[in-house]
């Protein structure tokens, strides 16, 4: 059975995460994706760890492998005229173009949507800036998911009230925005089948991030309360609910046993320490939050975290280790999902990368492949996709267009 997007052609002119991760979704669904790169101005993701075996190198980043799995790479200087001609051929070939240059740069280079549309009216083109292309600061604002998260309001919500905000883990909007980008592209593909026309999609990563925080936004917009960072985990309307210390260095377990039946299950496991009748009602547990948390911490602290998870879940208590990298790689749920896929690459040898997050019952995703090495398919792409002769390619090499 064909994959859902089998035969679809994607030109990935993105870097770092949002554009390329969006293109990876399409690649996993069967699209043929060409990643356009520069050797001189490398995708910064190639310099981001983790690196296979801890050895740095442009072809060794497992972040790059994860975000770019299954693509083919063409390395070109696209600012020179002859390079531009090649890009335009790729645009004519493509169904979808994803780019993440600083907003407006793609136009300055001569690849505005208005122009590309004249070459390929069916093209669906997406730009993934931090603030988008319009508004006071849209153009000219470069950034990463770190600044995107700050603009989205995420950074300010994460941290301890007595200290500076720390923000969420990493470039958070990089994980959020691709879902909105891919949904938009797939909807545009659906419509294109009916209208035969493409479109331009201008995404602001910060605005996508805000969609995940809408309840906090409405707390201000409707109630006039500007939410602040609270530090401790768990809802203030639930008790016990939070992270509790376990045995070992920085080991924690999340427990959320506020609901009555979960509380009864928890009491059954922990026993005497939670037997105070004052804890037996929801209101009682809110009022006695500190005492309950102290009792729970006393119970969890000497325990090995995964063992505590087993014991609690066996008794029907919502609980999970606060997973670290070493937990994820052996996680039974992720292994059962076959989330880790073996890849083999001449530079890094055998490694594991991640597979798609969701499943289709009848037209599955394609097999997960390694990410490309820089320019690993330049010649084939110039020949097969752009229709260039060996001689023309040699000329481009000589002129420094092919990098």
């Amino acid at each position, binding site marked *: 059975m064909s994959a859902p997007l089998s035969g679809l052609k994607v030109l990935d002119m993105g870097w770092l995460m949002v554009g390329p991760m969006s293109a990876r979704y399409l690649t996993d669904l069967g699209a043929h994706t060409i990643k356009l790169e520069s050797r001189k101005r490398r995708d910064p993701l190639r310099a981001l760890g983790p690196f296979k075996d801890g050895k740095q190198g442009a072809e060794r980043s*497992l*972040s790059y492998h994860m975000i770019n799995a299954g693509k083919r790479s063409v390395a070109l200087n696209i600012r020179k005229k002859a390079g531009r001609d090649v890009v335009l051929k790729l645009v004519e070939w493509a169904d979808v173009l994803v780019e993440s240059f600083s907003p407006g740069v793609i136009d300055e280079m001569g690849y505005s949507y208005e122009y590309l549309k004249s070459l390929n009216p069916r093209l669906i083109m997406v730009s993934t800036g931090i603030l988008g292309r319009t508004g006071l600061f849209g153009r000219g604002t470069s950034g990463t998911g770190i600044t995107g998260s700050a603009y989205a309001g995420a950074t300010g919500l994460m941290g301890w009230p007595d200290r500076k905000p720390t923000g969420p883990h990493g470039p958070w909007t990089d994980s959020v925005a691709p879902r909105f980008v891919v949904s938009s592209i797939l909807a545009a593909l659906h419509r294109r089948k009916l209208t035969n026309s493409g479109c331009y999609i201008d995404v602001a990563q910060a605005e996508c991030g805000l969609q995940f925080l809408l309840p906090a936004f409405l707390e201000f917009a409707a109630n006039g309360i*500007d939410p602040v960072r609270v530090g401790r985990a768990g809802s203030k309307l639930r008790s016990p609910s939070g992270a509790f210390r376990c045995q070992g260095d920085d080991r924690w377990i999340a427990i959320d046993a506020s609901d009555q039946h979960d509380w009864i299950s928890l009491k059954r496991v922990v026993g005497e320490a939670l037997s105070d009748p004052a804890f037996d009602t929801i209101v009682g547990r809110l009022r006695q939050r500190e005492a309950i948390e102290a009792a729970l911490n006393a119970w969890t602290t000497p325990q090995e975290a995964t063992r505590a998870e087993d014991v609690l879940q066996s008794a029907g208590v919502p609980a999970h280790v606060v997973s670290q990298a070493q937990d994820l790689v052996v996680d039974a749920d992720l292994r059962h999902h076959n989330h880790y896929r073996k890849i083999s690459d001449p530079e890094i040898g055998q490694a594991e990368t991640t597979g798609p997050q969701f499943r289709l019952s009848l037209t599955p995703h394609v097999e997960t492949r390694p990410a490309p090495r820089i320019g690993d398919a330049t010649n084939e792409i110039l020949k097969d996709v752009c229709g260039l002769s060996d001689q023309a390619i040699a000329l481009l090499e000589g002129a420094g267009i092919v990098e």
Partner: protein
Amino acid sequence: MLNNIRVLEISAPETMLGGQILGDLGADVVVIEPPHGAAGRRIEPFLDGVPGLDRSLTWHALNRNKRGITLNLESPDGRQILGSLAAKADIILEAGYDSRLDDLDSGVTADTIRCRITPFSRGGPKASYRATDLIHMAASGAPSLAGDPDRQPLFFPVPQAMMEAGAEAAVAALAGLVARDRLNISQTVELSERMAALLSSLSRAVTGGSGDALGKRGDDTGRVPNMYDCVDGFMLISISMNRSLVHLTKGAAEWVADEGLFPHELANIDWANFESLTTSGKTPASIMSDLVAAIKVACLSKTKAELTAIAHERGFMAAPVATMKDIHSSEQFRERGLFEEAQLAGDGRSVRVPLRFAQFSDYSIELRRQAPLFSQHTHEVLSEDVGLSSIEIQALFVHGVI
């Protein structure tokens, strides 16, 4: 975009954002709740801090552009109506495997894409786990790396696993739709809330098996500080040494040099070779801490808005640490058309709704409907979409089916 598409959402916290994204993209979305109300109506914050089925701001935030009905899916009438709505639906969005649709004649849903969200992987070793949003996020790998190293891991104060699952479900459902368009096959697409949440840990998922350092909490902020106090809060300024981004660092150095806080000759070094310059002693080893100290002083006397304008003009990587109040009054977002002003359903107060998550050349995400009040469209949908008579609908209400 999707204006020929009908979506049936059997409401759960983890379906809400997915249904909303499909509705924003133009689909006709009907959301089904049990007669006592959807779980999403009981999620804080509440309007004025007063709870009520129509007062959850989380519900209001995640159910725009949907019509809402109540239906008891345990009852024979409820199941028959569900079957009738399902037969007309292109996409059914549901949590888990207990929607009662499976008992129906599969013929009624032959052309429908089913998108199902389970807590953990179906049939897997954690399939029977009891889980809440907090539990899924603990399992995502992200909180263990967020926050200060001497304190507990940080979780968002807004439930996130349900957002992750909803947004991923929109992608999955649309992948199913495009597969139907291209291959003429309707199928089930399936994801787990935990798997969706995992993406928030980004490449941590591949770190454990990499042979590289595992990383720990505080790594994100520990190397070069990026959080600076300013007059009205905090400013985030990223000092990147990545070769492809280092020109942005130069912009920040030139700014503090012009402010008289940093030597011009150091601002003008070849930042691309920063490491070799410091290793060889050509620039002082303290250049980075000196730069950070200068930025710290420069920020103290300026507001977030002033610093944002400076960063934009000089081209360095920075962002205000925006609060929701800042976002609410942001000219950038307003000019861009992110917001729509709306009367909050059932309350009438005017609120600003950030809805346009993408700007299309020939389509605009519009606020066609506020989030439905409790059972707001039951009569309309049962009458117009299912074809029941007024007497029949009243009877269903009397018998507690709706």
